[in-house]
């Protein structure tokens, strides 16, 4: 397989006495959708917040295109082209769609906001993502439906030349039709050559669009496998017990439980 664009090795993160990530390793490939699954509280959101520079890791290495990088704040992550669509949508209700799309990265001309350029690019981006349900891009985000807000959040992550897009449960709050739309959108991103990380509790979604699946169990990756090589039941087993009955699977998972203490100390 091609070189991974992002490679995490031995990531550790704890909140006070609670150790959430105990040596996580993950590879993300361009043009592929890597699904990240695991039970509630497994540490999925914590893992990606570190990658976004929002909440730095305690230790471990992050490689971006084979170079070791440190991510202390969101700007360093976005400078590399890493974009995150958060589980709790990070949009400002009191601003309109255009303002939200360019938040923190406003286009300026002579020190003034260049509203025209931003509005035009926002229109183009939404059109490129085949978004047709939004009435006016000058309406406040507060007036949008859940799916529309999700669309805005995704558009926000691709409006710049992003390389890696991470989506934290993008379909959790959506109906059937809107889920379908968002998944198509996600697939299109990968087909355009972006590396996509998709966090989801819905295995239907995972099996529908993902190329790879990584299972997070008790702060470790139990397995990272190609979706076509696993069955749904095996993934469920990995999520719930960190191991699967199949012999050829889960070499990582086998050691996770017994090594727990050495990893945290």
């Amino acid at each position: 397989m091609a070189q991974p664009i992002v490679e995490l090795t031995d990531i550790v993160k704890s909140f006070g006495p609670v150790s959430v990530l105990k040596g996580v390793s993950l590879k993300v490939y361009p043009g592929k959708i890597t699904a990240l699954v695991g039970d509630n509280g497994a540490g999925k959101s914590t893992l990606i917040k570190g990658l976004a520079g929002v909440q730095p890791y305690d230790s471990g290495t992050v490689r971006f295109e084979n170079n070791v990088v440190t991510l202390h704040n969101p700007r360093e992550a976005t400078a590399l082209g890493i974009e995150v669509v958060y589980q709790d949508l990070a949009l400002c209700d009191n601003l309109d769609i255009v303002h939200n799309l360019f938040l923190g990265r406003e286009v300026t001309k002579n020190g003034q906001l260049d509203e025209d350029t931003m509005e035009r690019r926002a229109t183009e981006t939404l059109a490129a993502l085949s978004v047709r349900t939004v009435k006016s891009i000058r309406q406040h985000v507060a007036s949008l439906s859940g799916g529309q807000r999700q669309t805005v959040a995704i558009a926000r992550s691709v409006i710049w030349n992003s390389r890696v897009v991470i989506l934290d449960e993008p379909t959790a709050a959506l109906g059937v039709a809107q889920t379908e739309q968002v998944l198509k959108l996600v697939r299109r991103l990968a087909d355009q050559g972006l590396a996509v990380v998709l966090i989801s509790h819905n295995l239907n979604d995972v099996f529908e669009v993902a190329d790879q699946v990584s299972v997070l169990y008790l702060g470790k990756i139990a397995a990272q496998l190609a979706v076509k090589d696993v069955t749904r039941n095996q993934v469920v087993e990995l999520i719930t017990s960190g191991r699967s009955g199949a012999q050829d699977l889960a070499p990582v998972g086998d050691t996770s439980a017994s090594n727990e203490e050495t990893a945290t100390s």
Partner: protein
Amino acid sequence: MSATTHDLPEQGVAAAVRSYIGRTRGGDVGALPAVLSLIVLAAVFTVLRPSTFTNAFNFSNLLHQGAAVIVIAMGLVFVLLLGEIDLSAGFTAGTSAAVMGVVLTNHGWPWYASVLACILTGAVIGTCIGALVARLGIPSFVVTLAAFLGLQGVLLKLVGEGGTVPIRNDILLAINNDNMPVWAGWVLWAVVVGGFAVLSVRRAIRRRSHGLQAEDLSLVVAKSLVLAVLLGAATYFLSIERSRNPEVSSIKGVPQVVLVLLVLLVVLSFVLSRTSFGRHVYAVGGNAEAARRAGINVRRVKLICFVIGSSLAAIGGILIASRNNSISPNTGAADTLLYAVGAAVIGGTSLFGGKGRVLDAILGGLVIAVIINGMGLLNKPSSTVYMVTGFVLLVAASVDALSRRRAASTGNV
């Protein structure tokens, strides 16, 4: 997306009125309460005191009285936009003015250096408050309540128990007492109206050339006409001779302080609506965590807003000192802060953060000034004035809270 290049609906007068009504009903009442209360209050006082309330002298008086509150309120808009509060703004005005008075009168500094010292004092106070709120995360309510007490002490120390520091500099006295020549008032009127029209037309042309929805020419003309008539009437009114015996000393023309207010309005509105920083202020007030994740330095934005707020309070202090010819332990005390908060909120700035404009301070400040002035003419005792003003502030805050609820239910935050 309906906003493709070919089916752009032009924004004509009718469409604009319709969209305004729609927004108002959706809970985005904007400046409507302030404008309505201005009309109602003016009508009531005119009926009760037909000759004194409406005469030109009283109108200019009203502007002089309201100017300081308006400027302090402009600063509070920045703080309120964050969802924070500055209870010390009144005493920041008083303390900064006292510093100015001391270096000017007691140490013989030139007026411009004294003004600079005044504004710097405000900036330093704002930096301290902002640092405590943004860095340490102490609620602004507590920090500024402490500053409210502390600065009251500093002011007393500077001025001396029961003492006053007189202001004798002609330029400083002129700022909030003298008027422009009549012709200058009309030039100002022409510049404001013309500037508004030209900028609106240029904006519409530019947007249309970029294939974006733009204001129709008829709408620009209509807005400019309304502005021209309103400001024209005010200018005409202020150009009337208002001296009792004009042979001795003539008093007419637009007060100079109006120019100060206009410059601040334009500059600060530009900062809030046309710069990245301004956009970040709204974002922090709307959803601080989202702003942080978008890479905005939330602490820095907060700090700067407090510095702007206190610096403007200092400018407000200059206007009070100019009006009173002196600084006393009461400069900026008592009701100044409440009037300023009231002005911002009555004008339409939300106490919940994320919503507000600099213009709100002017509209709300005028409402406050009309109340104080009108009650004074009715010879109402201070007790009544306080109660009425407190009531008006409560009404404004209720309108704010209710429109916010309404906006949340209709998705128009």
